[in-house]
């Protein structure tokens, strides 16, 4: 394994300069943010083929999701960050498209939004910024 792997995480910025995935993350509790950071801290140093379930899933239309779980008052809550390996020209870069508190097994609405956001990035309608943890 390449010892120098270090992924850079970006956040989606809407055409009207809103970074709602960042806002979503910033609004999480400290425990939730801690778990997200812990999950991503390990993925950050792994090659792409070792990004695996349950922390990571490849979805359709070039999007994927990072998942993390947190116990809140003895109830396990699942969170998902839809993202994509973007910008494609950068080898170790992943862009968070949208963050969701998982309430349904098949979040069609969230996935659709993520696919649309990736399309906007590809067509240069939207931009990215380096995500702040």
């Amino acid at each position, binding site marked *: *394994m390449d010892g120098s792997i270090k992924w*850079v*995480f970006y956040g989606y910025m809407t055409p009207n300069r809103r970074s709602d995935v960042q806002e979503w993350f910033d609004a999480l509790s*400290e*425990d939730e943010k*801690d*778990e997200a*950071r*812990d*999950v*991503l*801290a*390990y993925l*950050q140093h*792994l090659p792409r*083929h*070792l990004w*695996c379930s*349950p*922390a990571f899933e490849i979805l359709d239309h070039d999007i994927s999701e990072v998942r993390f*779980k947190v116990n809140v008052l003895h109830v396990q809550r699942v969170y998902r960050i839809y993202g994509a390996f973007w910008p494609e020209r950068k080898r170790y870069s992943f862009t968070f498209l949208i963050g969701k508190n998982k309430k349904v097994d098949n979040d069609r609405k969230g996935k659709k939004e993520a696919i649309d956001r990736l399309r906007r990035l590809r067509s240069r309608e939207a931009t990215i910024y*380096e*995500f*702040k*943890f």
Partner: protein
Amino acid sequence: MNLNSREALVRRLRRDKATRQRFVESNLAKAMAHQLRATRDKLGWSQERLAREVGMNQNAISRLESPEYGRQTLTTLKRLAAAMDVALIARFVPFSELIDWVSGTPRKISGLTAAALAIPNFESEEKEGVFAQTMGVGAGPEGHLAKMPDPLRQFTSRRLPGNTLNPLGPLWTGGTRASIALQQVGSAGQLEGTSRDSLQNLCWAQNDASVFDVQRPQ
């Protein structure tokens, strides 16, 4: 971007004992699972092959490779280590060591010493000021500068273009400045005309003023 800077980790662990416990559990579970998967991958083994070598079934290996599992027993870990022909270290460590490991900060390991057997707990390390150095508590940039060797002090007390305070100064922690400096510079690679490589050399030469002077930007 730094997911797990020393500063952020110290701030997190200072919250309370329960947070520290969760941090240990979270990292133990994730490190074991990811190490197992990555090491198996490096060997070119499938889960089935590893299962055969250890005498388990494939489902058990799959479970052990899940970062959410976190219930590996020491006996199982020893069997896995033996099967993959790697060593296994299971020992208590001070939180400062775990912070260094998670943040990717190089740390001098003293080996088997009396200090390594009687571990200071978080409170003891806090009293000793181990974390205060990282956070700059009670010292401030000038205080940190005062603790630095002369050549590095001269370097870090200089200002970046545009009067930006040199990021090395306030973050310096004895013995680990190489890593922290490089984290700050990151892939941008420039610090007052100094390339990442020369900064690396400069930092690793921390005890050698002559090498430092050669690398120092003019």
